């Protein structure tokens, strides 16, 4: 259950968040909790994830209650609201934000779980009220498992500077490359595209490190990611006037862009182009490859569930870690390239994964060329009361029991030297 109220200026910020997320996906989750209201979304290729968390104090009024369900182990488990909304329904409501800001006195959003509806009401002057009833789809929210605090490189920048850089690129530009040295920052057209299109202009912008609020580069790095999502994030950052933090490691590892205001916290995780080898792949062969891979996984899954019993995977809570040994980082990298997930039915308790299944998760070397963007770790949003958003490794991941998620395939792997267990959804 959710009930919240905002003023006109707050609606503008909320609307900017919706607009930013619409660049990532056609649908998003409405996920209220004790920490506030989160809007989450992930794109269809699982290469981009966005989450905007509005603190309870952001709203004039915020009321939330969790559904309590008795689990089989007779433990109280708090479940999140399973509320997925289509962007096509929501986006038009928050289109003319400047007009909304000026004209509405109050906006009220609440859920009616009995009818699977979210109600959005705008209260205008002169007693005029506009009500939108939007049906939602029951779906467990996803959360990306990625700890930005262990990234080697960290930047903090004013949105205005990034906006200046973005103007350089044409709207047809699909990917941009971010290159850093300890003294310099460079944003440029992706080299891959300029090779393909002989008439494309290659642009780049160098900025000195002294223009940043924070500039920490552990190693020279060049990462390439989608441009569309970056523009969406900037749209949102203009509304908050807060600096943007950028966290990244090396090609193939995700890039995180964060905005941390007192009232609003936003995190966008983007996949980056993997190693040099994969840049040669064409988008079409990539799609075909992914399609084939998914078909294989579905077949495997069907084979293992001859009895028709649903596959369930449960994992123990992972201990939070700020720093990981080099060995662990290597494992993380290996897991990101999971191609053949180890699938095993779990009856109640978590059982150990055999060593042979660990080797099964390694990618066939030849198929590395076909992977363009590494997938990221995803799991259900934890119901843990003590969850810290900045440490998603705290989360207890739970697969969704909705029909749509049945098509997701879970793989699991145990890291040597660590008691943490992670899920990867392909």
């Amino acid at each position: 259950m959710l009930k919240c109220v905002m003023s006109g200026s707050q609606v503008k910020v909320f609307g900017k968040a919706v607009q930013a997320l619409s660049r990532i996906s056609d649908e998003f989750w409405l996920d209220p909790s004790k920490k506030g209201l989160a809007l989450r979304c992930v794109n269809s290729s699982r290469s981009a994830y966005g989450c905007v968390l509005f603190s309870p104090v952001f709203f004039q009024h915020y009321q939330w209650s969790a559904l309590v369900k008795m689990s089989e182990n007779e433990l109280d488990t708090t479940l999140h609201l399973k509320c997925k909304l289509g962007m096509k329904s929501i986006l038009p409501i928050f289109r003319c934000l400047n007009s909304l800001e000026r004209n509405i006195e109050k906006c009220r959003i609440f859920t009616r779980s009995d009818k699977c509806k979210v109600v959005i009401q705008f209260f205008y002057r002169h007693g005029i009220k506009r009500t939108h009833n939007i049906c939602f789809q029951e779906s467990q929210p996803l959360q990306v498992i990625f700890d930005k605090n262990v990234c080697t490189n960290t930047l903090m920048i004013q949105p205005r500077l990034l906006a200046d850089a973005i103007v350089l690129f044409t709207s047809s530009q699909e990917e941009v490359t971010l290159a850093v040295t300890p003294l310099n920052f460079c944003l440029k057209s992706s080299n891959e595209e300029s090779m393909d299109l002989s008439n494309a202009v290659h642009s780049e912008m160098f900025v000195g490190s002294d223009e940043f609020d924070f500039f920490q580069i552990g190693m020279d790095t060049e990462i390439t990611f989608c441009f569309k999502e970056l523009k969406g994030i900037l749209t949102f950052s203009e509304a908050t006037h807060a600096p943007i933090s950028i966290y990244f490691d090396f090609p193939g590892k995700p890039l995180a862009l964060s905005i941390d205001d007192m009232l609003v916290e936003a995190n966008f995780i983007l996949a980056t182009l993997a190693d040099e080898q994969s840049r040669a792949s064409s988008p079409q062969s990539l799609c075909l490859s992914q399609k084939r891979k998914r078909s294989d996984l579905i077949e495997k899954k069907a084979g293992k569930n001859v009895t028709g019993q649903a596959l369930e995977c449960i994992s123990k809570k992972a201990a939070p870690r700020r720093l990981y040994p080099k060995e662990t980082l290597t494992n993380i990298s290996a897991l990101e390239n999971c191609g053949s997930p180890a699938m095993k039915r779990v009856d109640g308790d978590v059982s150990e994964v055999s060593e042979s299944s660990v080797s099964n998760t390694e990618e066939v070397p030849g198929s590395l060329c076909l992977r363009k963007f590494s997938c990221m770790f995803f799991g259900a949003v934890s119901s843990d009361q003590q969850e810290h958003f900045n440490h998603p490794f705290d989360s207890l991941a739970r697969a969704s029991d909705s029909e749509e998620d049945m098509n997701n395939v879970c793989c699991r792997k145990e890291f040597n030297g660590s008691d943490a267990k992670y899920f990867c959804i392909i």
Partner: protein
Amino acid sequence: MKFRAKIVDGACLNHFTRISNMIAKLAKTCTLRISPDKLNFILCDKLANGGVSMWCELEQENFFNEFQMEGVSAENNEIYLELTSENLSRALKTAQNARALKIKLTNKHFPCLTVSVELLSMSSSSRIVTHDIPIKVIPRKLWKDLQEPVVPDPDVSIYLPVLKTMKSVVEKMKNISNHLVIEANLDGELNLKIETELVCVTTHFKDLGNPPLASESTHEDRNVEHMAEVHIDIRKLLQFLAGQQVNPTKALCNIVNNKMVHFDLLHEDVSLQYFIPALS
């Protein structure tokens, strides 16, 4: 071949940007001719351009603080480059409020015109923006098609009205027909005429004046009120008018009866000739 130029003056940079913007509106692809004294933007009258041709000329010393070039040889000390005008225009647009602009002929993976912009910033260091614009170097044997067009003796030469007014009229006429008749006489009168089966619309401009030389030489031979006319595609005229952001110092229209319209514009430091052939 070498080419390297630099603009540090803000006013010159803005002016050069406006010219590039105008060219981008007039021609999708054009030739940039670089010679020791001049820059030319050229559109030759290929069928692909619908017979339209253009010749735009800039004196380089009015724009560039530094200008160094070496052509293909000492005898042919020129460089001809084909490029997409929009690319250059967009690159220069990022140079607003710049401290300096550099243009250079480079070869990175492919031949490029590299535009470097040094932007002001809040801190001590500058922001450097670089655009590598793909170009094609035009070989010597094709240069003959890219020379300055020969201007035929016009039947009527007349000064144009304010281009913005003219554009406004032509835009409305386009809603009626794609064919337009432009006619003028030596009595300072110019008419824009649309004729269809249903309606005939004519806009009259009066007291425009004729260049002294032209009227003087032909005055005794014919009736000054006699109209010379050309039947043209209205879209080509609109494309020409759309490119004119600022009213030029001098704007002249030369009509060769039933053959072509020749526009001769002079802005400060820039001359532009635009040829629209008659519809057959």
